[in-house]
């Protein structure tokens, strides 16, 4: 879910084309994704991909109270500092994650499959 890609049919085709066989990719703007997910009775086999913690918060605040959130990689940019491996975050993003954690979301940091994931709770307060 992403407002830019959700409004870009060409990019949606690019992403869908490269999906592993048997996997369906649906791309929505954040508002549309919220609508679709809220109206889907079984979400057990749905993986939600987002670019930023801001989107994760919109999803949560929109009423979709997920239990777990993995941070898979956030590039460095002005205003962001490195917090773990190739994950960087701004003050605002760290605050969002800290807040989601306080609401009971289990937040992990795992950038590459097979590695040991790091609990965000181990970093919170130190970053």
């Amino acid at each position: 879910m992403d407002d830019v890609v959700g409004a870009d049919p060409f990019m949606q085709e690019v992403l869908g084309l490269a999906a592993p066989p048997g996997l369906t990719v649906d791309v929505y703007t954040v508002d549309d994704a919220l609508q679709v997910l809220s109206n889907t009775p079984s979400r057990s086999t749905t993986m939600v991909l987002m670019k930023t913690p801001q989107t994760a918060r919109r999803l949560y605040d929109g009423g979709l109270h997920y239990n777990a959130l993995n941070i898979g990689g956030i590039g460095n940019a002005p205003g962001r500092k490195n917090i773990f491996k190739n994950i960087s975050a701004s003050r605002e993003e760290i605050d969002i994650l800290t807040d989601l954690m306080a609401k009971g979301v289990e937040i992990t940091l795992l950038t590459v499959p097979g590695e040991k994931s790091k609990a965000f709770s181990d970093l919170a307060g130190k970053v």
Partner: protein
Amino acid sequence: MVNIVLVSHADVGAALVRAAEMIAGPAEGVYAVSLLPEDSPESFGEKLDGVLAHIEGQETLILIDLFGGTPYNVAARQVLKETVECVTGVNLPMVLELLMSRDDATASELAASIATAGKESVRNLGPLLGR
């Protein structure tokens, strides 16, 4: 002569160019853009735009390491340009084939021929040699 731009995770693209030059000799009009661990899709896109700005409007073949992933996500849009073709799954035989056949071919012709060359270069030697 068609320009070649390799886009890849880490330095795979740059290394493929070095390897191909060991065999086919120095090559011009070949560029490599590396996605580094500290890059975001945006910063990688800026690097790619920087390279493409030099060869704007010219016949260009973009070779992408993986069918999927950030280099693919960022570079795929370029195929909307009339003079640009994109091929994924780049390997050394493809780069070599290109360096030796791009003198009088269009990007579109080269894209088709190296897609085939790339597939044909993959062999499982055990069964082939009767082991």
